[in-house]
C-alpha cells in the first residue's frame, strides 16, 4: 500500500515536470520553430525534405521517401529489430518435440463452417473478409509512395489476416496456409531483399543503400525513378518480415509454443 502512495507521488512529480517542459515548446505547426525552420544560421533539414524530396525521388509521399530512402539505414535495422524480437519470442516460448499429450482429433473437412451456429457465422464472415483484407494489405504496401502506408502497415495487416483465420477456426488452419518453416523463411527473405538493395548499390561503387546508382539494373531512365522503384522493393522486403513475425508472435503466444490448436 505504501509503495502505491510513493508511486503516485513519483508519477505526479514526473508528470508536472513534463507538463512544465511542454510550456517551452513552440506552438503546433509554427513555421519558425527549430524543427521546421532549422537552427538560425544553418539549413533546415525538414525544409530540404519538403522542397527537394519530390525532385530527388519522384515519390509524392514525403514520409515514405524519408523513411525508405534518406533514412533507409534506420528502417533496415528497424526491420532487423522486429526480426530479432520475433526470434527472441521464438527462443523463449517454442517447445520443440516432447508434446504434452497427443490428442487425436478427427480431421474435419471444412472446420470453418462445421459446428455450432456461432462458429458458422464467424467462419463464413472470415472467409468473405480475409481476401479483402489481404488485397488491401498488398495495396497499402504497393501504394505507400502515393498515400499513407508502406511496408510496416501493410505487413501488419497481412499478418493480421492470418491471425484472424487462426482466431476464427484454430491455429492449425492458419498454419496450413503459412507454415512455421515458411514464415521463418519469409522473415529472413524480407531482410535479405532489403540488404540486397543496399549491397547492390555498394557493388556499383556507391554507399550502402544509395539507390540512385541502380538505374541500369531496374531499367529506368535516371536515378530518380531508380530510387522510387528501389523504395518499393525495400518496402516489399519490410512487409515480408513484418507479416511473418506478427504471425509468428501470435502463433507462439496463443499456443504456449506448441503451435497446436491455439486459443
Amino acid at each position, binding site marked *: 500500500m505504501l509503495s502505491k502512495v510513493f508511486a503516485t507521488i513519483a508519477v505526479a512529480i514526473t508528470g508536472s515536470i513534463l507538463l512544465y517542459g511542454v510550456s517551452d515548446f513552440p506552438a*503546433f*505547426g509554427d513555421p519558425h520553430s527549430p524543427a521546421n525552420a532549422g537552427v538560425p544560421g544553418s539549413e533546415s533539414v525538414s525544409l530540404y525534405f519538403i522542397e527537394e524530396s519530390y525532385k530527388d525521388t519522384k515519390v509524392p*509521399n514525403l*514520409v*515514405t521517401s524519408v523513411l525508405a530512402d534518406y533514412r533507409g539505414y534506420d528502417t533496415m535495422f528497424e526491420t532487423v529489430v522486429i526480426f530479432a524480437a520475433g526470434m527472441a519470442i521464438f527462443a523463449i516460448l517454442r517447445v520443440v518435440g516432447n508434446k504434452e499429450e497427443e490428442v487425436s482429433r478427427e480431421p474435419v473437412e471444412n472446420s470453418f463452417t462445421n459446428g455450432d451456429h456461432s462458429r458458422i457465422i464467424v467462419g463464413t464472415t472470415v472467409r468473405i473478409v480475409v481476401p479483402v483484407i489481404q488485397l488491401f494489405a498488398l495495396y*497499402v504496401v504497393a501504394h505507400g509512395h502515393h498515400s*499513407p*502506408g*508502406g511496408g*510496416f*502497415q501493410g505487413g*501488419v*495487416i497481412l*499478418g*493480421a489476416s492470418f*491471425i484472424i483465420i487462426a*482466431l476464427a477456426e484454430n491455429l492449425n488452419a492458419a498454419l496450413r496456409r503459412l507454415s512455421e518453416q515458411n514464415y521463418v523463411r519469409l522473415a529472413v527473405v524480407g531482410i535479405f531483399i532489403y540488404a540486397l538493395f543496399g549491397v547492390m548499390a555498394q557493388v556499383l561503387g556507391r554507399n550502402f543503400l544509395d539507390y540512385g546508382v541502380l538505374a541500369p539494373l531496374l531499367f529506368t531512365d535516371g536515378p530518380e525513378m531508380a530510387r522510387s522503384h528501389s523504395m518499393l522493393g525495400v518496402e516489399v522486403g519490410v512487409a515480408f518480415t513484418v507479416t511473418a513475425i*506478427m504471425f509468428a*508472435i*501470435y502463433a507462439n*503466444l*496463443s499456443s*504456449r509454443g506448441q503451435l497446436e490448436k491455439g*486459443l
Partner: protein
Amino acid sequence: MIFAFDIIILVFLVVAALISLSVKDLLSASMIYGIYGFLICLLWAEMGAVDVAFTEASVGAGVSTVLLIATVFNTRRRSSD
C-alpha cells in the same frame, strides 16, 4: 485541427488509460487498451500525421490487442494487485 474535437478525444484518452490501469479483469484491460490505441490513432490522424495514425491503428489497436488477449488466455485472467 479542431479544438473541441481534440479536447473530447483527450478526455476519452485519459479515461481509457485510467480504466485500463485500474480494472481487475485483465481481458477487459486489454480491450480498453485497444480503445486507448484507437483514440491515439484518431488524435494523430486529426493532427495530420496520417502515416503514424495508420501504423497505430494496425499495430496498437489491432495486433497488439490480439497479442495481449492471447497472453491473458494463457495466463490468469485476474490481476493480483
